[in-house]
């Protein structure tokens, strides 16, 4: 079995934050220890998003080793962009996409995070058809 993985980090967000931080940090610390409730990373919403993307993109997908790297990247970018649009303020998003071929082998994927459980969260969704499986995991890390 072959699998390709692509992860995209929205660095731009971080830099933007840095700039503001630089200006603000001189006067007073403006740490926000907890996200605004509406802007919290809500796994259910994110899951819907991921699910929609999966359904849309992989509806009739067949596994082909050549296309999968691009597909994973595209998927991760798509999901990341969508998540950014959802307005999780001060969140850093990590979107991981794994696509593998279904050949009967057993697969076990797990993730473990060192994070602040109060603010950070993650969600994943799995898509499977006869030829491939796709796991999209989205991690949201709060940038205080």
């Amino acid at each position, binding site marked *: 079995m072959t699998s390709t993985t692509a992860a995209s980090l929205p660095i731009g967000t971080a830099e933007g934050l*840095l700039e503001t*931080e*630089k200006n603000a*940090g001189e006067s007073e*610390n403006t*740490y926000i*220890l907890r996200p605004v409730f509406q802007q919290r990373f809500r796994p259910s919403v994110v899951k819907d998003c991921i699910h929609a993307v999966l359904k849309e993109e992989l509806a009739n997908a067949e596994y082909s080793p050549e296309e999968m790297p691009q597909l994973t990247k595209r998927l991760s970018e798509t999901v990341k962009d969508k998540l950014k649009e959802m307005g999780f303020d001060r969140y850093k998003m990590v979107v991981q996409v*794994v696509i593998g071929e279904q050949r*009967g*082998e*057993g*697969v*076990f*994927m*797990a*993730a*473990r*995070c*060192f*994070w*602040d*459980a109060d603010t950070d969260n*993650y969600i*994943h969704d*799995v898509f499977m058809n006869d030829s491939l*499986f796709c*796991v999209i*995991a989205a991690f949201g890390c709060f940038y*205080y």
Partner: protein
Amino acid sequence: MTSENTSGPHTSGNPKGDKKHREKKLRKESEVDFPEDKEQKHRDPDRDTKHRERPAERDGHASRENPRGDRDRESQGKGKRTPETGTDKGTKRIPRAGREKSHSRGKDRDKDRERRARREEPRQTAQHNLLGWQLPEPAERRARAGSKARAEEKERRDEGSEWGDEERERRYRERKLQYGDSQGNPVQYWLYKEGGERRHKRQKEADRERRHREKSSVREKRDKHSREKSNSFSDKEGEDRHREKRHREGARLDEERHPGDTGRKERSSREELTKRESKDSEHRNRGASSRRDPTSSQEGSCALWYAESLVRNNGKDKDSRKKSCREGSTVWKQALSPGSAEIAEIEKEDTDIENAGTDEYTPCLEDDFEDYEDDFEVCDGDDDVSNELEPKEKIEELPLARKKEIQEIQEAINAENERIGELSCKLSQKRGLTEGEREAETDANSSPSRAPVCGIFMDFATASRRQKSRTQALKQKARSTKLLRLIDLDFSLTFSLLDLPPVNEYDMYIRNFGRKNTKQAYVQYNEDNVDRDTQTEEVETKGVWSQHPAEGTAVSGGSGSGDPCDTGAPKVNTPRLSRFLRAACQVIAVLLEEDRMAAEPSWSPAAQDSALRISDSASQLNTSLPFLQNRKVSCLCASQVQRQTVVSVHGPPGAASDPALDGRHVLCVWDIWQPSGPQKVLLCESEVTCCCFSPFKAFLLFAGTVHGSVLVWDLREDSRIHHYVKLGDCFWTFRTATFSTDGLLTSVNHRGPVQAVEPISTSVYKKQSFVLSPFSTQEEMSGLSFHVASLEESGVLNVWVVVELPKADLAGSLSDLGLIPGGRIKLVHSATIQLSDSLSHRRYEFWGAAQTLSVKFLPSDPGHFIVGTDTGLISHGTRQDLRVSPKLYKPQQCGMRPVRVHVMDFSPFGEPIFLAGCSDGSIRLHQLTSERPLLQWDGGTDGRAITGLRWSLTRPAVFLAQDDTSCIYIWDLLESDLGPVAKQLISPDKLVAMTIVGEAEKASGGFLALVLARASGSVDVQFLKRVWAAPAGDELGRLRLLLRGAL
């Protein structure tokens, strides 16, 4: 450093900066160029100024700084200046400078350069240019250094070895000094001029730097002194002169240097390198500090502009030296403040001011220079060999054409400058460098040779980035440390993102190939639809209403049709109704019977005819029924309780009429008031010899047969369990015996014909019967609390217990053999009494066993019974084998006679007397207590055998006797105790059996009737005349008197 820069633009770096260069050169020149040093010595002051200017020009940014300070100062002194005018004038002046530059020595210079270049080319093209550029400078520097070295004390040379260490410290101190000087410069100047320079100096030093070492201060003073000397000349020409000298010097120096050039090349290049590095560092600083950014950008343009002006100058080389000198000063002034207009103003100012200005500039320049030096120092320490190589290649980055041009220009300028002074030369070098830098930034990859240079700039970029990232990292680190105090981080659980179990081989195979060669053969559906019983069947509903308390006739009803409920049944006391109906039915039936008899005269005359003389009226029981035809009546029996009920026993018919009944005996239960038909018809297989009714209620009929069996009929039984026979136009139910002892209890049962069956019923035995009978109703209990005794000829008296089963079993009973299916009455053998034992007297032994012919139980005490024998004796016995007296009732005649005592009858009125009729025609009246009879009539019947003997049921003193000649005798003891009062012969139809029915008169309805069975089979009822029927007053008492009298 930055802090110092910000603190004030005037920080004086001159001494330090100078010294650094100077001293480096000193070391070198002390070996090589010593002669030159001497020559230069006298020009020290001039060079000093020049030297001061040089770094300012080299560092565009440094020169940037100056204008500010300049402006500040000049604004103090002069007022306002517009930059625009300044620039204009600057441009005007340039041609003059150019003219100056293209001096006679310019060509020599060029030649020198070319020569040098040619020499260097084989080695390194990159170095060629570099060297070409730089040669003048080191030379100049060397010259300067030499002069300086000489001008300054020998101590420094002594210290040469430790120079590097001390260098920095000194520079620092000096800068401070200078700084102080520069600030107070105008004042100082005048002070110096007026004299007491030293004093002043010291004073100021004391003021500003107490810690300052003497040595450095001395040096400082000397510098100042030389400067002031030149200034003291001044008054317009001073400066020019200096310049001229310098020019000359430069040229000379150049020429002189030639031989040693090769040797020095290395060093000079290194110096160049260091300079550039310093610049780099300067740039870096600039990059780091945003404050400097604008100046740096201006610098580039300024440098370019200057280069162009030089080109122009190149074209015109005819200006006088003086002019060129002047120009040079202006040139560097312009360089110092490229974009500003001060220069023009300065030009206009009188020399004093100008000098002062220059004086002031120098500190400014030196300040910057010192900055640069500081950077240089840092970089010197930091930079490696790799860094050293890069600068050499830097020159390559210039576009070749332009480079050439600029090179030419600069060479020309250098030549000029060499003549005028080293200043311009250095300026041009700087400019070139800045240009190079800029170009490298714009098009870094235009030529391969530039790549390395690019590297430098990349290095610069990365360095700045590194710094940036470092600051960023620091910031983030601080941030993280602050945040981590507020946040708890922890490990999350391990999320299982995907758990796809491996598919085993078979499944995989099936998934891939399993569907091959398969097709769907059938479809199974609704497999789980199991049929189950449900409880949802239609419930039959019916509307029913009821009312309580029930008032009126309709108390309940409903909508259902054909239901008994809906018809508003009147409230009926059923038992009472049934009782009423039973009685009423009987009455009606009797009435109907009478009406019929009246309506049918044919019957009645016959009946009337049949009426005897002794009777008032007579009726005939309808024995003409089909099943009774041709049957002879063998026996008649009347119930003692229900006096109107008579049973007649009919023998088998003479001619076969009905196969179902042929050979069977029929018993008919009659109601004498309903003579038209029997109440019940009973069937019996064997011949019935005797029968009797149950004592209290005549619903049981017991019969004894010739076969020795005892039969019982339960007249209450439902007719449906019995045999239906349709005879004629109506149905007849022929009841078979409910229970028969036939074939049962063979050990105790009778073996001979049953002579008599008698019920035993007294109150004494009620307790026993209670125990035996499970019935609850008093009526039934009382009805069943009796025993039945059956007597056979051989003297065996069996006592049977009548048992009623609690429940009828239509299927028949396995244990109760002899019981008809559905029957409830059975007989249980209770006791057997052998009468023969008591009868066999020793006196009568020769007679053999006596035959027992009849048995009667005492009505008052059922435990006692009397048995009539064929010996004329009547035995008295008890069921409990008690001794009784008398044991035998004997006739009046003594001795044994073969007299059969056939009939006996107890008085129904409770008198302890009984009648016994004998076969010899004698009738005895016995008292229970006496052995001998009270009365004995031997000739009453003329010796004919008595077959029937019955007390009258209505009159205690009347009894009737029947003899075997079918004659009836009536005895009335009150009337006559000698013989019968009446005699009636029944003929022609012989009398077979007779019984008496009658009811004691309660009101006036008493009757006494004789039921006579004729030989023809007919049964008629003769109602006796009232004489014998109606009792007389106190008849019983008179009888008792009679009997007492008889005793």
